[in-house]
């Protein structure tokens, strides 16, 4: 009886079968991700406009960011995308232990990313490069800034904190989703027939990774590392 109950409850009544349900779930999350592209796209468009206005200040200010930690975080996040892809594959092939291990590994890498980000934010706080009344960058950057450049440098740092901050919020939401997946996987909810939640959470996680793939060169790398 409980077996039958499980089978009927994983297939919502409006769908013919699980394949159709999975296809609809996938389309739904992709449409959501397109709205996310628009959301981050607005920030990227804003960033591009201000960068073209204040190019020298933006290039100079990008030097104050810690490129080593940025590159490390890029590697961490790419690794978490790999473990997430492996988690989806484990669900597809009905390997419950592997699924749980890869989900846990993805969460660990996500937490490492946020930890490194927190270290960076703290260092930036200590160096007075958070926009506001205490904004007072020191060292090499000052040689590259024009007299009015401090204001433009603050605009760059505003973009940095806004974009990485919103990205970090997406990571935290992703970690919450992964935790629920892990708990459901532990209960044995997922089978090779029913793994749509793992698949769509994976799509979300990869999207957040892609946002970082663009944030890293735009904020840390281009112009002024040499």
């Amino acid at each position, binding site marked *: 009886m409980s077996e039958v109950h499980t089978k009927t409850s994983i297939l919502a009544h409006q769908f013919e079968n699980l*394949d159709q349900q*999975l*296809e609809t779930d*996938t*389309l739904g999350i*992709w*449409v959501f*991700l*397109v709205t996310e*592209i*628009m959301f981050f*796209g*607005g920030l*990227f*468009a804003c960033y*591009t*406009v201000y960068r*073209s*206005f204040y190019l020298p200040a933006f290039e100079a200010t990008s030097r104050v960011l810690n*490129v080593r930690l940025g*590159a490390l975080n*890029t*590697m961490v996040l*790419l*690794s978490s*995308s*790999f473990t*997430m*892809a*492996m988690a989806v*594959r484990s669900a*597809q*092939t009905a390997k419950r232990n592997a699924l749980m291990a890869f989900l846990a590994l993805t969460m660990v890498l996500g937490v490492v990313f946020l930890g490194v980000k927190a270290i960076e934010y703290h260092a930036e706080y200590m160096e007075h490069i958070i926009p506001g009344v205490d904004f007072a960058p020191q060292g090499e950057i000052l040689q590259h800034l024009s007299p009015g450049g401090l204001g433009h440098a603050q605009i760059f740092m505003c973009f940095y904190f806004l974009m990485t901050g919103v990205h970090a919020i997406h990571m935290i939401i992703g970690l919450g989703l992964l935790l629920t997946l892990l708990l459901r996987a532990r209960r044995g909810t997922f089978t090779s027939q029913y793994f749509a939640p793992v*698949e769509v959470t*994976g*799509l979300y996680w*990869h*999207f957040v*990774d*892609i946002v970082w*793939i*663009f944030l*890293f*060169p*735009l904020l*840390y*790398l*281009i*112009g002024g*590392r*040499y």
Partner: protein
Amino acid sequence: MASSHIVPVKTYLFVFASLLFLAALTTAVAFVDLGPLNTVIALTIAFAKMMLVVLIFMHLRHGSKLLHVVLIAGFFWLTLLIGLTLTDYHTRHWIPDPLPWSSSAPATHP
């Protein structure tokens, strides 16, 4: 069923290695002065990484035509968003600001 296609582990490992290589490459190139090419190379590498993630990790290579249309439409609107915003901001100075109606100075036309 397209989206339940199971990708071999080897493919995932290859994509993962390629992504790490590209991340190292883009970081290394940033320390070499190539002028405006730095930006072009950084964005090209980022685009390549995105395509690897989208096509393989996100299974779009085996996705339905409908998914392709949705994503292409999304990127089309993104290019409109960024392209038209830049067009606006960078052509505003082409036409001088009109004088206010109340101004007594004679209007000049370029």
